[in-house]
């Protein structure tokens, strides 16, 4: 495979850079429907590659990718690291989580430092909403948002969309987008960047999205994002095609927002009985890591045919490979992308 083959326009999209005219990937809110579809299409080749035993290309050979994580992460960091390495890039991880590097001028100084080291792409996770955009303004290379505060986690939404697309395809329900698909997102919507990115991505692709949370964990005005709102999971889950559960942070279920974990499970846990209220074939998703027995029961999480949770992890690598490929095309001199 040569670089040019990989980035050849598929015919459905504008040629070259016009297919994805962004330097950075900071938020789904910045993307048009066709740009999301382009990213998903481009990821398909990496899904295939990742299923072979030899999973390496030299596409990004010589490029340096820095994963700057200001917040603890295991799976997202690993996923980005594997994605970069499979594309042949030199990947460096910087852990600055929770410790000294929390104050903002340090954040900008860190950005300037990384920039001076001539990174070719920087992947950032930070605990404050908008932090990735702030850094993107200060550096000369593409910036990928791996989660900023309660704002967005765009690659998670893209990998969820890719996962859904594959699952629907295997059932013979393949279609260009998710028009008419009923999705419920349940959990801590207020603090969830995964929820915000997924709402934007799924609605952009035509899905009918409901969000469900206790009142204290539901942000006000969320209806303006084109979703319907419910506090009653039994009602919200009725007849849906996809149930997307969110992780509930332990510190939020000990009296501050939720009286207790078992009470949360009572009202919002995805049990087998509750899943039975959804469409008979309804698919189950969770961004991980799961609190088994709290927001999701093991017997649901581990259902072979219905649970897409491990598939989400697989698609994560492919999506991140696609993003890294597309965002570095300009620097690599790919025709039509300078």
């Amino acid at each position, binding site marked *: 495979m040569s670089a040019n083959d990989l980035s050849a326009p598929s015919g459905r999209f504008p040629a070259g850079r016009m297919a994805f005219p962004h330097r950075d990937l900071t938020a789904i809110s910045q993307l048009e429907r066709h740009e999301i579809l382009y990213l998903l299409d481009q990821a398909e080749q990496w899904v295939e590659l990742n299923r072979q035993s030899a999973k390496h290309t030299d596409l990004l050979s010589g490029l340096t990718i820095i994963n700057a994580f200001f917040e603890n992460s295991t799976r997202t960091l690993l996923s980005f690291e594997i994605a970069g390495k499979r594309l042949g890039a030199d990947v460096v991880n910087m852990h600055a989580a929770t410790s000294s590097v929390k104050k903002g001028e340090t954040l900008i100084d860190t950005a300037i430092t990384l920039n001076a080291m001539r990174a070719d792409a920087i992947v950032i996770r930070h605990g404050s909403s908008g932090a990735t*955009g702030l850094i993107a303004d200060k550096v000369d290379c593409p910036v990928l948002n791996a989660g900023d505060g309660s704002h967005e986690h765009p690659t998670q939404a893209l990998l969820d969309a890719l996962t859904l697309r594959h699952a629907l395809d295997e059932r013979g329900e393949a279609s260009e987008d998710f028009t008419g698909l009923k999705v419920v997102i349940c959990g801590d919507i207020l603090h969830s960047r995964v929820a915000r990115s997924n709402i934007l991505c799924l609605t952009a692709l035509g899905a009918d999205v409901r969000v469900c949370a206790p009142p204290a964990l539901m942000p006000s*005005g969320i209806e303006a994002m084109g979703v319907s709102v419910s506090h009653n999971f039994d009602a919200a889950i009725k007849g849906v095609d996809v149930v997307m559960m969110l992780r509930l942070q332990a510190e939020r279920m000990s009296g501050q927002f939720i009286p207790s974990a078992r009470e949360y499970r009572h009202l919002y846990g995805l049990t087998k009985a509750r899943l039975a209220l959804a469409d008979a074939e309804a698919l189950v998703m969770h961004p991980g890591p799961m609190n088994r027995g709290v927001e999701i029961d093991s017997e649901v999480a581990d259902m072979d045919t219905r649970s897409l949770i491990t598939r989400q992890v697989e698609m994560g690598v492919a999506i991140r490979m696609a993003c890294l490929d597309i965002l570095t095309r300009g620097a690599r001199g790919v025709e039509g992308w300078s």
Partner: protein
Amino acid sequence: MKQATPLTITNAQLVTPAGIVRGAIRCAEGVIAALGADVSAQDGDAALDARGKLIAPGLVDLCVFAVDKPAFHFGGITRAALMPDQSPPLDLPSRVGFIAKSGKPDLWVHPLAAATRGLEGSELAELALMQQAGARGIATGRRWIADSGVMLWLLQYAAMLDLVVVAHAEDAGLAGSAVATSGEIATRLGLPAAPAEAEALAIARDIALADLAGAKLHFRQVTTAQGFDLVRAAKARGLPVTCGITPAHFMLSDLATADYRTFARIAPPLRSEADRQAARAAIADGTVDVIASGHDPRGPEDKRLPFADAAPGMAGAETLLAMTLNLVRDDVIDLPRVFDLLARNPARLLGVAAGELAEGHEADLALIDPDAPWIIDRRKMEATADNTPFDRQGAQGRVLGLWKGGVKVAA
């Protein structure tokens, strides 16, 4: 610096509480000696031709967080009430006494005494001693006093001393660590947000307590429709309740934060467009008594941060007059009312003989061209920091000259 030579400014439009008067104003020994159509310069007076521009009282800014003389003089401010939120806080007579003298002679700073020690909201500070040292009012600081018992004692004590209490109106339990107002914008941005009702809750409680104590209560900033309704109702009942606002809340809504611009991070946070419109209506109908700058210059170490991590506050002194004059062009208020809001009412709340053009008052005067166009440019500001949310906006209204006690201090 005492005024050595009497000054007469002729050919002016004098902004008096009763209306605009074409004529001259004569100042001697630091006070206004005469004004009106039939006043003229006497032998030995310094004379100035205003060429038909406005002569208005120097602005009395209630309140500011920093003393920033170049910015105040640019903005036509001759007196400023300083909030006690300093480092260390103004909770001791010695600190108040020092601040009270700090700006003289060309700027008078009126310190507001911290209501409670360390502004912690639990123990009353030495309010009578601070009054003796020069405090012109009492302020709860950036924070609300959560304990209703403490607030009642404070208001009773302030009533005894005949000092106004300047209160911050945000229920702390609801506001928590919020940096935005609950609603679509905060939700899309993923920012910690509190419902606008946090303001009304605080106002309702404090009005009830002030009524009980018979105290003068001034809400430094009221920014929501429900808050204005409560103040309006309290005034209708004849209570000595007043309120202020800064231009940010009648010029901007939470839309201004949509790109995480930290210059629009202020406290209380920017509100919805409906609340902004309610603010303009409250200014028009007299519910609002004071427009202040809330001047709080903040450098990049406080502002070049993710939105929620940035310090709140804006540098407002230079844009205060021009932003308020927008209300005249928009037919919300007339010119004399502009100077009621910017000078006369705040001077009355502080109990100082200034803030209006009247015989015997301090000769604090501003020569103003209300139509002079300019571009607000943060790179060219006089303030110690450039954090204005109005950067690159067009504005009208400039101060051409400023006198404190009859002595020229700027331009």
